[in-house]
């Protein structure tokens, strides 16, 4: 089912829908001036979900520990900020490099094996990093997190304001760059090879493909981009804490990608935004029981939106084409 829908959705929703999505995002600045902080947060979630979906949706590699890289990005930002490195873009690049490097170190144990072993290994890695961050009080602040560190002005001009104006444009710009980058990667010969691995890894070996190398590159890219997302959250919220690399965040990114339609770049952005918005809305309605609402939405989405939001939109597009 997955492969069928992804080829359809990718052809329907390749670059076409990116521009309207961007315009809607820009419009939201003027339509919801009181919600800029929330919207910037949705952009960050979208970057994180895109980073994860490069693994799951394109290469077919599942992971339950992707928040590790998100957390590393966040802590890198906080630790650098405490040591006087606070230029947002410099920090962003460093977070990208650090989380990519950690992904590079982990790739050997993640890439080998099958889906089940990968789930267990990535789950284990997630727990290890969580515990390490918890215990390394001197570096990470342990369970209290890191509330006070310096975040500089963007380009030396724009401070991160209370209304979230700077955060909005900053995160939207990074999201656009990541979106275009992944569009290019997934349309490249490398991207075709990733889909080849997803579709039939056995045949990939039989055509002489360096499968493990491809997966290693993907894992590093994916980890590095997740690190960017984590850095953005730390910069815009001025906070880094354990929940940024915890299991729940790892599980959430899987849900966001699935809800949006794994393998579809615009779909995953919509999935992350929908998930983030629902979570926020439900926790306002009931701070205690919001998990209940998310659970129902997730289960419904599996039955109603079989291939995510992207699949539903592609189906709609097909129906309209037939009518026209």
């Amino acid at each position, binding site marked *: 089912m997955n492969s069928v829908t992804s080829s359809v959705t990718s052809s329907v929703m390749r670059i076409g829908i990116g521009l309207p999505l961007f315009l809607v995002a820009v419009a939201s600045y003027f339509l919801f001036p009181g919600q800029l902080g929330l919207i910037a947060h949705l952009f960050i979630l979208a970057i994180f979900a895109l980073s994860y979906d490069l693994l799951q949706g394109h290469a077919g590699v599942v992971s339950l520990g992707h928040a590790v890289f998100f957390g590393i990005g966040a802590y890198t930002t906080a630790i650098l900020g405490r040591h006087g490195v606070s230029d947002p873009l410099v920090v962003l690049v460093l977070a990208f490099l650090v989380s990519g490097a950690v992904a590079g170190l982990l790739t050997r144990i993640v890439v080998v094996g099958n889906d089940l072993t990968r789930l267990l290994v990535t789950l284990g890695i997630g727990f290890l990093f969580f515990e390490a961050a918890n215990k390394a009080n001197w570096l990470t602040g342990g369970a209290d997190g890191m509330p006070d560190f310096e975040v500089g002005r963007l380009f030396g001009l724009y401070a991160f304001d209370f209304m979230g104006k700077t955060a909005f444009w900053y995160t939207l710009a990074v999201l656009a760059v990541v979106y275009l980058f992944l569009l290019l990667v997934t349309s*490249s010969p490398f991207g075709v090879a990733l889909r080849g691995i997803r579709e039939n890894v056995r045949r990939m070996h039989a055509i002489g493909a360096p499968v493990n190398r491809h997966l290693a590159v993907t894992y590093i890219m994916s980890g590095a981009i997740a690190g960017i997302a984590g850095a953005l959250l730390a910069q815009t919220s001025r906070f880094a804490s354990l929940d940024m690399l915890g299991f729940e965040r790892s599980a959430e990114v899987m849900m966001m990608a699935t809800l949006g339609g794994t393998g579809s770049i615009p779909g995953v952005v919509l999935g992350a935004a929908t998930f983030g918005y629902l979570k926020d809305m439900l926790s306002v309605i009931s701070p205690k029981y919001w998990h209940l609402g998310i659970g129902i939405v997730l289960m419904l989405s599996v039955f109603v939106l079989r291939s995510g939001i992207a699949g539903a939109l592609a189906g709609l597009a097909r129906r309209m084409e037939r009518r026209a």
Partner: protein
Amino acid sequence: MITAIETSGLTVRFGNFTAVGDVSLTVAAGTRHALIGPNGAGKTSLVHALTGAIPASSGTVCIGGEDVTHLSQAARVRHGLARTFQINQLFRGLTVLENVTLAIFERERKTRAFWRLAASDKAVIDEARSHLAFVHLDALADRPVHSLPYGAQRLIEIAIALATKPRVLVLDEPAAGVPAAQSESIFERIHALPRDLTLLFVEHDMGLVFRFAERITVLVGGQIMTEGTPAEISADDRVRQVYLGRRGHHAAA
């Protein structure tokens, strides 16, 4: 004589069971060589061990005179050894064209590039279209593979293998699962392959084997029973017995 494939003492064991036992097989370059034998004779296991899909328990494999015993499957492909599968192993969600271009991108080591568009590499796409034209599927290039009938998918198996530019092509029951009329046309395409490409194929249909093979190796119980020209094999009483005996056994069961 230049040897395309040479195995010596090739053995594959699964626990106590010997699937391939001490097989020393030589295929001359440019030959069309058939591998036959009853079900469970170890033909597919031999193909796996030759191509490196499973490791040999002992023995050696040489391709074009080079010892590849300790090379991975992917490395053997780079030495010019390609294969097709008895049961389709295709990239089902990708288009027919993408299935073939992917093999070319890998051969040219172009899959390292993530900063270029795959669709803009005209040389690769033209080559892929020529492989598809060879198997008469160029008209279906943009269709997803899973939407094609099984017979057409069997031909994509071959087109992908050709795209690796092999010197030796191992075909594991290339016409398995298709009606007799279609297996004819699949073998007609195999027959039309360039003469300098060495072919080793597994096939059950004796009519096809005797028509298209120049040499035949008979595998029984994981071991080579005999080898010879089609005329020699068809005259061999033991071979007839193996096949008749098997048929008799089937009837009894």
